[in-house]
């Protein structure tokens, strides 16, 4: 890409910024205006606006905040953009610095990850690099992603091991329990006597290596055996 002296020739990287904070939005806008090769394609303050805006503007790079007001969070937006194919590359710009956020961003297909406090002054450089096909992650972030992947493998393994020893009935009961259904209600729903349900539950606890319902649900959720909806 050749740098353009002035104006917005067709060769510029078109940037769409998704950020609810007006000041940060302004920073990205300024970076685009003052950097050769970058042009602002659009702005959005909510996830819904972002998905809609990218449909019409088809930007090369989306700068994406992970925490947004409204129902659609940053990760949901990334997923939507990826499945619709309405964004070339995604650069996450976020205040979240926890390991889970970094890993989650990578899993939805982010091409770069900038922390707001440390990274925003590198935004122009990061945008150009991401647009050129580079991945913009620090060595620390890559390491975090690997270790999270290892954790995920461990959990997946454990969940599959536990699943292998549970009967279909026990799994069914576990799912109902984790939705907060009482033993009596479980019995009614499955057409069993409460006593039978109790028997299933005690076997279930033994297999999970837990002593009560709270532990059972938290263990099952932790290893991904049941999902909290």
């Amino acid at each position: 890409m050749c740098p353009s002296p002035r104006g917005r020739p067709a060769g510029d990287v078109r940037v769409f910024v998704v950020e609810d904070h007006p000041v940060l939005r302004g920073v990205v806008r300024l970076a685009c205006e003052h950097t050769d090769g970058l042009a602002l394609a659009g702005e959005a303050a909510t996830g819904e606006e972002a998905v809609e805006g990218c449909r019409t503007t088809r930007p090369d790079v989306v700068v994406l905040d992970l925490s947004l007001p409204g129902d659609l969070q940053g990760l949901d937006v990334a997923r939507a953009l990826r499945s619709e194919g309405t964004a070339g590359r995604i650069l996450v710009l976020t205040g979240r610095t926890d390991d889970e956020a970094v890993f989650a961003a990578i899993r939805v297909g982010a091409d770069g990850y900038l922390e707001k406090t440390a990274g925003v002054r590198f935004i122009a450089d990061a945008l150009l690099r991401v647009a050129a096909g580079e991945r913009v992650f620090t060595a620390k972030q890559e390491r975090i992603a690997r270790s999270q992947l290892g954790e995920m493998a461990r959990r997946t393994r454990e969940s599959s091991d536990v699943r292998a020893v549970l009967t279909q009935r026990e799994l069914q009961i576990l799912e109902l329990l984790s939705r907060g259904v009482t033993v009596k209600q479980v019995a009614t729903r499955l057409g069993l006597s409460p006593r039978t349900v109790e028997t299933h539950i005690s076997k279930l606890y033994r297999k999970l290596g837990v002593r009560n319902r709270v532990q059972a649900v938290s263990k099952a959720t932790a290893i991904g055996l049941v999902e909290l909806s």
Partner: protein
Amino acid sequence: MASRPTLERAQPSRSPKRRLGVVLVDPLPVVRAGLALLIDERPDMDVVLEAGTAEEALEGLGRIRQRSIVVLIGLGLEGEQDAYWLMRAIRERHPGLAILGCGARADAMSISRALFMGADGYVDKNADPLGFLQALRDAADGEMVLVGPPSEWVREIAQGLERRREVQTKLTDRERQVLRVAAEGLTAREIGDRLGVRERTVTTHLGRIYAKLGVGTRVAAVRVANVSGLVTAGSLE
């Protein structure tokens, strides 16, 4: 959650340098010899066992008393007791050992499978020697190692794990059985014959499988089964 106990802490700090013991498992003697040469040259590690089969490896591991061990398993180990089977077996019998899969440009699916079966990481034979050796040290320190594959593969490998989890937890045993046979390309009728159920029952099962996996066609379901390791990893059950 408590991970593998850190090996060095368990040992009295008698020697300043903790030596790392490496177990080489690979069907090819030349590969083992090459790796042994590279490793034995280092002052901080040596090869404590070489094995050409899973059986030899397990037998040898039973005799090793050293605490700090990395088991390097070549993905080329095939047969009934293949590399993945061995990873699972070691994870169960010797939970304290670090296990690394080792291959030549393995794809994301194979790596995903290795991690699922019990590996603490993967190192490629095409890595530069220093990076390769560092991977062994990092694995011994309890780090998750991925040396060789481009870092964007983390996403694909994670997807493989996620699919595995879905197939393992969402489908019933019967549904998994049906899906595995369906992956061979049999018709509903043939599947029914194989499993001793009516064709109608098979189509009902298939319908439920599609719904649970969020797919619309048999081909898509089979693809999920492949990615999830259901088809390739018969040893899972």
